[in-house]
């Protein structure tokens, strides 16, 4: 194959542009001083220790984890049947309903957050954690419907018809035939929904309350008052988690399945 030198250089530049900030952050996390400096003068793991022992980080991390898992789980429970209905039934205005389901991803996060604040906190007066859960459910649902919907559309409908003709009822067919064949879509939906919920700031900011805060929100809060390498350490830990998850996904399903 003929190699294009210019293209190679361009690729390297883009890659460097993406990777250098991550590299700098990683290095600064291991500094000894109280200010974030690059390059670091001496090596230390004390900021990692600091992060892991900080109570506000610990509780908010657990809150975020809990909210993200629960919200994603509920979104799957609601979103998978909804996606199935949208993909299979010939109801009128299918396209319109689809776009409505996707609207939370189009409207700016801050607007969604404010609208939910108005409705959930001020009008319905739901407890903070429940409110947070509802908000995160709403922002994760579109991902589930979109991704599961597209894998359902790729799944040959006559396979279901064949199962029916062999005597299997509709519910049984869904669990025995349809679900086992859209697992890659389901796990992709789970990952994206989870990551989006876990990283979300605008909706969480509006819906947090006394004692209940999500991880990104409390991280932001911390940075406002303490600008030290703890932040870098947190970033490194998060990157590590993501890499581990990705490796697991790649080993079990293959990264390519996420792109489907």
């Amino acid at each position: 194959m003929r190699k294009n030198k210019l293209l190679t250089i361009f690729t390297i530049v883009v890659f460097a542009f993406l990777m250098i900030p991550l590299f700098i952050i990683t290095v600064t996390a291991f500094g000894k001083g109280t200010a974030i400096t690059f390059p670091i003068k001496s090596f230390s793991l004390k900021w990692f220790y600091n992060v892991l022992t900080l109570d506000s980080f610990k509780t908010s991390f657990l809150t975020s984890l809990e909210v993200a898992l629960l919200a994603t789980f509920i979104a799957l429970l609601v979103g998978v049947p909804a996606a199935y209905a949208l993909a299979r039934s010939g109801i009128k205005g299918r396209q319109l309903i689809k776009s409505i389901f996707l609207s939370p991803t189009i409207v700016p996060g801050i607007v969604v957050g404010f609208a939910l604040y108005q409705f959930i906190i001020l009008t319905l007066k739901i407890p903070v954690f429940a409110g947070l859960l509802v908000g995160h459910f709403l922002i994760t649902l579109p991902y589930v419907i979109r991704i599961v919907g597209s894998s359902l559309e790729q799944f040959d409908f006559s396979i279901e018809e064949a199962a029916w003709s062999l005597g299997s009822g509709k519910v049984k067919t869904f669990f025995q035939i349809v679900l086992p064949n859209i697992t890659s879509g389901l796990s992709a939906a789970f990952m994206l929904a989870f990551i989006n919920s876990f990283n979300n700031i605008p909706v969480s900011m509006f819906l947090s309350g006394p004692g209940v805060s999500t991880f990104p929100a409390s991280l932001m809060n911390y940075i406002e008052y303490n600008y030290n390498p703890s932040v870098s350490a947190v970033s490194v830990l998060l990157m590590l988690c993501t890499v581990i998850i990705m490796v697991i996904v790649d080993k079990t399903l293959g990264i390519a399945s996420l792109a489907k």
Partner: protein
Amino acid sequence: MAYMHLNHIDVCYDKKINILENLNLEVEKGELVSLLGPSGCGKTTTLRVVAGFIEPKAGSFQLENEDITKVPVNKRNFGLVFQSYALFPHLNVFDNVAFGLKIRKLSKDEIAKKVNEMLEICGLEEFKDRFPAQMSGGQRQRVALARALVIEPKLLLLDEPLSNLDAKLRVNMRMEIKRIQKKLKITTLFVTHDQEECFSISDKVAIMNQGVIEQFDTPENIYQRPKTEFVARFIGFENFIPFTKEKELNYKAQNGQLFDSDSTCETSNCIGAIRPEDIQIATKEKSKNVVKGVVGVRTFLGKSYQYETETDLGKFLVNMQADINLKEGDEINLYFPPNKLILVQKSNA
């Protein structure tokens, strides 16, 4: 009463267009009946009504003298084979075939016995552990057939099962289907748009057009004696002459010329149809059924040449043996043998 009976079936789409109109079909036990027609003629819709995927707006469907119009798909016990094979991608061949038996809650030993028997009939023993993605089109189609047959269905429904296969495999597979169908004596409905495939395999053929069965008969009868213009066109008649009836067996064309035909026609207006290979060059002594024409474009067909011939009665396509060599502009007399000139009814398309 026939084994399977479709009674005045109406199906419409969006409550406006009639896809099927007053459709009647009777199939005897053990017969293989084909639904043949161009795409959009309603043949697949008919099959889906029988399968239970579509509920007709009017009419009823009887099987063994029992009305099963309202019985849901999964309670009908029919075997279906789809054009796309529709195998379960996550199950291997054995489990694909066993699926219907597992739903029927048979014991493990019974399932294994029946599945293995069916795999043997379909020549699939060695592929038992393969997954659909690891098999060729022909093999997958045989798995689909085995899966449909193992439940001992009351009816076998085949929806264009061969159209995704290449030409040679198609011929083999249709022989295979015929062999298995006769061996198991299973009543079968076969949907296809391929005339040759349909004639070679069927006991009877229903030719469909615009939601109506135009003719339902044995392949031989349809081939020799089409009833309507549509059927005639579909099975290879290329030349048509509008006639008015003068007297029995004697018909007048639009230019006043009289023709003899051995076939009969009930109405006063009808159409004379003839295949390109049945038109001959007139010998001197023939005076009736002769039309004078000028040779136009010539096409090579292998065994013969096809000539486009211009006459008073319009264009005719004529096939001639390769040793008869005509050139463009040659004047010839065409002879229409009375036993090959078939009278058909005008169709609405």
